[in-house]
């Protein structure tokens, strides 16, 4: 019934997921890594924010399974045809939101449009607010909206909690099995752990956050079945749908950029610190030059050039989705190229320190080659810096996407992102009456994502390296401020 479409960003994202799983397996086996991650797990704030991040990631991953639906067969032709538009699993799940458009703005949970229209009623032309095509269209009486909303909220919350109970029940059962403890006792230790003698993983924070998420999700889903929960935008698209679609872009920008940053920073930092001399001079020169160009301007220059390339080669891309995807990847690439210098400098300094340590000297005395020393003895001891830098950069990248899209050098304008949402909505506050819901939706979701990422990053930093001084590094700090 459909043909799967593999966009490059999907492939890279899923490859990163696979990489993370492989890394998790590796961490389980290494004692010191397991202990560091355990320290993250002991922090309630970290676990709560990790749960929220996981919710965002699952939305993003659902949105990264793309396909083209098959068109109904035409008369007299056996040829199979596919729709030109590329959809994702998320689109299929929330098809109601995607397809039920209004004419233009409508307020959250509204039953009537935002603007008056001329209508014919009983043969007389009047100007009034027309009913929406989808929002509250099932209502006979508009006055019944509030009780309908309350009813839906109650049943949504109920189903949300039911789902929560099932998930938590299974999770606790699994824990009980793993610990070989009775079910009731496991429940009690999860809810009120014995903090006097042990430092347990903060499962309670996870479950409470999950409960909140389930209730919010349940209520939103129940409302969304009959209303536009966050209203609609200028062309009548559901704002909730747009916000959900924006999550993937934000996650991609925050994660795929590391695919460029990481190899560059690690390889060059290691070589500069370990080899010294001519190599060191060259690499230092390279990152000083890149660093001395103000970040936004360098990004702007590169993006402008990328636009020229994409505009002059329209034949490279078969569908609009592919072009937007290529542009997103190029943006990640550019952000990566401009943001590896800070990490590289840190790694170089740390390598300089490690190089002089006894065990490295011993390895050298045994005649171990440079490449092997770097890979076996130095790289593992740099990994905590790399990890901390990555999680700390994530939130900065998500924020910078919004700014870049506002300036006009961000993602393709056809691609949903928080930046394009804000950009489209920035003049709406000056309308009368005020159209606030697009901005509010972008604000709430971005705040949830970035705040969770920041809190999680802090916990990771504290767990892996409490001594190290970490400057709140933001690529676009100067612009954002």
């Amino acid at each position, binding site marked *: 019934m459909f043909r799967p479409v593999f966009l490059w960003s999907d492939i890279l994202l899923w490859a990163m997921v696979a990489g993370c799983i492989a890394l998790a397996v590796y961490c389980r086996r290494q004692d010191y890594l397991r202990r560091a991650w355990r320290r993250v797990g002991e922090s309630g704030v970290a676990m709560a924010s990790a749960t929220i991040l996981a919710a965002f990631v699952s939305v993003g991953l659902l949105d990264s399974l793309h396909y083209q639906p098959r068109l109904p067969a035409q008369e007299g032709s056996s040829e199979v045809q596919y729709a030109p538009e590329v959809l994702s699993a998320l689109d299929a799940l929330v098809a109601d939101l995607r397809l039920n458009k209004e004419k233009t703005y409508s307020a959250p949970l509204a039953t009537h449009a935002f603007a008056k229209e001329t209508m014919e009623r009983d043969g007389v032309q009047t100007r009034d607010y027309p009913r929406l095509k989808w929002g509250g269209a099932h209502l006979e009486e508009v006055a019944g909206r509030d009780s309908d909303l309350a009813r839906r909220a109650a049943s949504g919350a109920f189903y949300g909690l039911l789902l929560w109970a099932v998930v938590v029940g299974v999770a606790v059962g699994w824990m009980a099995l793993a610990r070989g403890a009775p079910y009731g006792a496991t429940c009690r230790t999860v809810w009120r752990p014995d903090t006097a003698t042990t430092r347990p993983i903060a499962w309670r924070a996870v479950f409470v956050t999950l409960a909140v998420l389930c209730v919010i999700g349940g209520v939103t889903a129940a409302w969304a079945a009959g209303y536009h929960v966050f209203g609609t935008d200028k062309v009548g698209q559901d704002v909730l749908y747009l916000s959900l679609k924006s999550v993937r872009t934000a996650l991609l920008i925050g994660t795929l950029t590391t695919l460029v940053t990481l190899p560059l920073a690690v390889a060059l930092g290691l070589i500069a610190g370990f080899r010294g001399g001519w190599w060191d001079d060259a690499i230092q020169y390279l990152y000083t030059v890149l660093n001395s160009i103000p970040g936004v301007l360098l990004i702007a220059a590169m993006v402008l050039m990328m636009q020229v390339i994409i505009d002059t080669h329209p034949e490279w891309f078969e569908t609009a989705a592919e072009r937007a995807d290529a542009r997103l990847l190029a943006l990640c690439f550019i952000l990566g190229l401009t943001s590896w210098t800070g990490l590289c400098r840190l790694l170089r300094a740390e390598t300089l320190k490690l190089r002089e340590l006894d065990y490295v000297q011993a390895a050298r005395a045994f005649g171990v080659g440079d490449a092997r020393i770097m890979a076996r003895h130095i790289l593992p001891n740099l990994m905590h810096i790399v990890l901390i830098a990555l999680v700390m950069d994530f939130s900065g990248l998500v924020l910078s996407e919004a700014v870049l899209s506002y300036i006009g050098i961000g993602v393709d304008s056809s691609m949903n992102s928080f930046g394009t949402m804000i950009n489209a909505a920035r003049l709406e506050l000056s309308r009368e009456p005020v159209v606030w819901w697009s901005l509010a939706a972008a604000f709430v979701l*971005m705040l949830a994502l970035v705040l969770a990422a920041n809190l999680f990053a802090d916990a990771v930093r504290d767990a892996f390296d409490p001594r190290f001084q970490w400057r709140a590094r933001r690529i676009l700090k100067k612009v*954002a*401020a």
Partner: protein
Amino acid sequence: MIAYIIRRLLYAIPILIGVNLITFLLFFVVNSPDDIARMQLGAKRVTPEAIEKWKAERGYDKPLVWNAAAPGVAKATDTILFDKSVRMFALDFGRADDGRDIALEIRSRMGPSLAIAIPTFILGLFVTVSFALLLVFFRNTALDVGGVVLCVAAMSISGLFYIIGGQYLVSKVWNLVPISGYSGGLDAGKFLILPVLISVVGGIGASARWYRTLFLEEINKDYVRTARAKGLSELHVLFRHVLKNAMIPILTGVVVVIPLLFMGSLLLESFFGIPGLGSYTIDAIGSQDFAVVRSMVFIGSVLYIVGLLLTDISYTLVDPRVRLK
């Protein structure tokens, strides 16, 4: 010290050459002037004559690095590399795509940019340092925890929302100041107060949290205990002793941006319609005026390098132990 400064200035030359090379590669080699002309002129069916004319008007019709047809020294100088890149070292930026002189434009727009940037910088530094010291004063209390939570929340909000929200509340709902615009002289105050406030508020989160950790590191040192034992008040200890000693890491982040204040702020200026260098840059990016973007990249790098030098010099001012050699 003077020898050090001269050496650092000499060291800046290869870096600026590197910056120049990168911009040259980006703007002329990645895409040939033909591609850019075609895109600027818009349609796909551009005649070769139109492209040649566009290039000739802007001086892009020369060879990239080596003009074999020219006589003598002009072989190297009558090229795009020399005309567009090497000349920048003499601060000769040429003309924008709309024909205006870039250097003139920069001179006239510097004023409004500085009018926002300098008050923002001074007020912002004062407010964040005071806020951080206040948090340290209340350390280990609920106020401190609340303050840090507030900081983390504040730094998780995109700068765009501060601007949009602030503009909406102050200008539209409360009607206190004009929404946007600019005028010279004393009149400028009413246009500047809101952008300055917004950028100060928007910047508090990240910096105050960072300063707080710096101050907390100092607070347990011996000299602080001595000062307290002497009977000095806690506020006196914080502002006179702790602040002075935590100055070095603060200066690292602060002094480097002082020269960059000239560049203005991209977002603020474009939202508030202030005719500074930031909005100039944004307009240039929007209209794909590469000559202006190239000049701004170069100026930005020069200012950044000056900032690094100033940082080093400022170390010697706050910490007499630091000697520059």
